[in-house]
């Protein structure tokens, strides 16, 4: 049986790779992809903890098996989808008005 720690290490690696990408890439679409990687790492963490560490009885409802970890993961999917849709729409709008997709060139509001 593969232990919990192994999954958590993988998730941590994935998260840090995503973090590096989000910080270092210039293209806004790349940054968004890195954020997706980070969200995936979070999901992996949630599901791994659900698999190994949920109490046998759900605290809130008293149901035999709590599904909290999976439910949280589903909500992360929703957030990821909403984020991708709106984020990419913003990038397209930025490209249309400024002819660029480089993240740091959108700095009009910076002072």
């Amino acid at each position, binding site marked *: 049986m593969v232990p919990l720690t192994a999954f958590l290490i993988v998730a941590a690696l994935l998260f840090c790779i995503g973090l590096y990408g989000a910080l270092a890439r210039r293209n806004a679409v790349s940054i968004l992809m890195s954020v997706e990687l980070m969200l995936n790492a979070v999901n992996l963490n949630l599901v791994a903890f659900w698999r190994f560490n949920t109490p046998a009885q759900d605290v809130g409802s008293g149901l035999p098996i709590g*599904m909290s970890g999976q439910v949280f993961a589903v909500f992360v999917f929703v957030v990821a989808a909403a984020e991708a849709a709106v984020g990419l729409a913003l990038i397209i709008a930025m490209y249309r008005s400024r002819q660029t997709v480089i993240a740091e060139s959108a700095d009009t509001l910076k002072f």
Partner: protein
Amino acid sequence: MQTVDWVQWLAFGILTLLTIGSALAVVIDRNIFHSALWLLVSLFGVAGLFVMLSAPFLAAVQVLVYMGAIVILIIFAIMLTRRLMGLTEALNTQWWVGGITAIVTFLVIAFVLFQAGQGANPILVREPIAALNGRGVEELGKALVDPAQYALPFELASVLLTAALIGSIVIAREDQ
């Protein structure tokens, strides 16, 4: 029929290699379209890990939503904004700061994990999961609509999706 331990480790190794390797390729590859394809492979690896964690529903959703929808959305966005790509440097001027941050973060997490692993509270396999065998989806459905559990977030998800759809249509549409 018990699946052998080494089969599980083998599957875990392959999936980890897929996930981490292609995640690295996502952030390193200069061609943004290839980057998106590597993201695909990475997401597939995570789906496999979900299966190993006895969450097959999430694995299927991962393939359906992430690989089948979000990546297609990303590729469309790349095609729509492709005019200038490839002309510029892939990395910004502070890439080394980002790298150091990422490595330090990983070291901290790994340190904490090893600390926790050596503690007096060993993390064990939860047995009831075996009782869940095959009924995970139904349990998930019950938990989602149960007013005592996640009914409100469930409705809020609908609101979020509606807002995202309306917002992105307003933003992305060309002004007439």
